[in-house]
């Protein structure tokens, strides 16, 4: 039986060899401790271009990620309680949700985060989905090299508990929030809802789009998210259930206050 340690070792060796052969970079020394090895593997996943890998690599990677994901609880929609009809609010790790689709806050290249060990959600999603996701992103992009802000594309979730990933590029705030950028944030939510509805998905879990690296203010982003989704659900009864999956207390409180206020 192969251990997680052996799988990790295999994956690190494979990816380092690839880098030696393709990019002529010296392999990094493999740390002795498990945490160091995990970080190194994570880093190698992040740096990898969208190119195919061997069948053996995919098999071992998929086993490795399956174990990794099962280190933490996997959450289903049935584990959550609706805060309003068709709307759920949940605080936790979006990548652990076993739902029809999670929303990835992508950048304009739409290939996932290439910054090694970066803390952004795009990075976590791509790392845990496996190398197949970046290849699927590339396929979804076709001839395009950049995606416009506010659009959405769908790919499978691969090793993630979620069946699909809906990728959208939210607006970046540069100096101040302008009306255009508010509209573009709303457009991102609408594009994701439209795509999920068209695909007949049963539920979609949103992160707080644009509020991380893209610096959109949390309170205004929450208002736009709730308003856009609520309007969409009112107009399209066949739309999927919505989970607002936040990862911090500030956002949780903002959403909770706003959703509970609207209900009364």
């Amino acid at each position, binding site marked *: 039986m192969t251990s997680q340690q052996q799988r990790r070792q295999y994956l690190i060796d494979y990816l380092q060899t690839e880098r030696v052969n393709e990019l002529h970079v010296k392999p990094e020394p493999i740390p002795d401790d498990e945490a160091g090895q995990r970080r190194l593997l994570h880093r190698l996943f992040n740096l990898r271009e969208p190119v195919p890998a061997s069948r053996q690599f995919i098999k071992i990677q998929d086993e490795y990620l399956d174990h990794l994901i099962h280190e933490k609880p996997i959450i289903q929609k049935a584990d959550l309680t609706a805060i309003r009809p068709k709307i759920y609010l949940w605080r936790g790790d979006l990548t652990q949700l076993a739902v029809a689709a999670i929303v990835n806050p992508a950048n304009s290249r739409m290939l996932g985060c290439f910054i090694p060990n970066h803390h952004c959600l795009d990075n976590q999603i791509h790392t845990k989905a496996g190398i197949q996701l970046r290849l699927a992103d590339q396929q979804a992009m076709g001839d395009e090299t950049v995606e416009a802000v506010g*659009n959405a594309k769908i790919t499978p979730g691969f090793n993630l508990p979620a069946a699909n990933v809906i990728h959208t*590029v939210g607006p970046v705030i540069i100096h101040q929030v302008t009306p*255009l950028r508010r509209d*573009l944030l709303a457009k991102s939510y609408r594009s994701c809802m439209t795509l999920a509805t068209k695909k007949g998905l049963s539920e979609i879990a949103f992160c707080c789009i644009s509020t991380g690296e893209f610096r959109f203010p949390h309170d205004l982003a929450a208002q736009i998210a709730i308003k856009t989704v609520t309007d969409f659900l009112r107009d399209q009864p066949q739309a999927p259930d919505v989970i607002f999956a936040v990862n911090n207390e500030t956002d949780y409180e903002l959403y909770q206050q706003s959703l509970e206020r609207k209900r009364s």
Partner: protein
Amino acid sequence: MKKRGDYLFVDEENGTYTISLTPELQDDIGTVGYVEFKNDDDVAKGDPIAKLEASKTVLDVPAPLSGKVVAKNTKLEDDPKLLNSANDNENWLVKLTDVDESAFDALKNA
């Protein structure tokens, strides 16, 4: 007659509607480095008419009105800076016809 919608100017003359960027939009997106026109000539309001890769964002410019694209300023493909020009003869994006006049009338005056 010139009106505005979706951060764009819509300038009507003899049934042709010329679309260009408002100064607010130019400021918001920054310097445009690349312009790519969409292929569809029959556009509904909100459909993308061109993708602008600018310094501060990548923007799909939505059609401010439904209509038919009868001209594209393809000079922008080689020289996107023209979008920021003060000269109305060179800063336009597309020209539309077959526009519903009441939809145009409903836009704000520029």
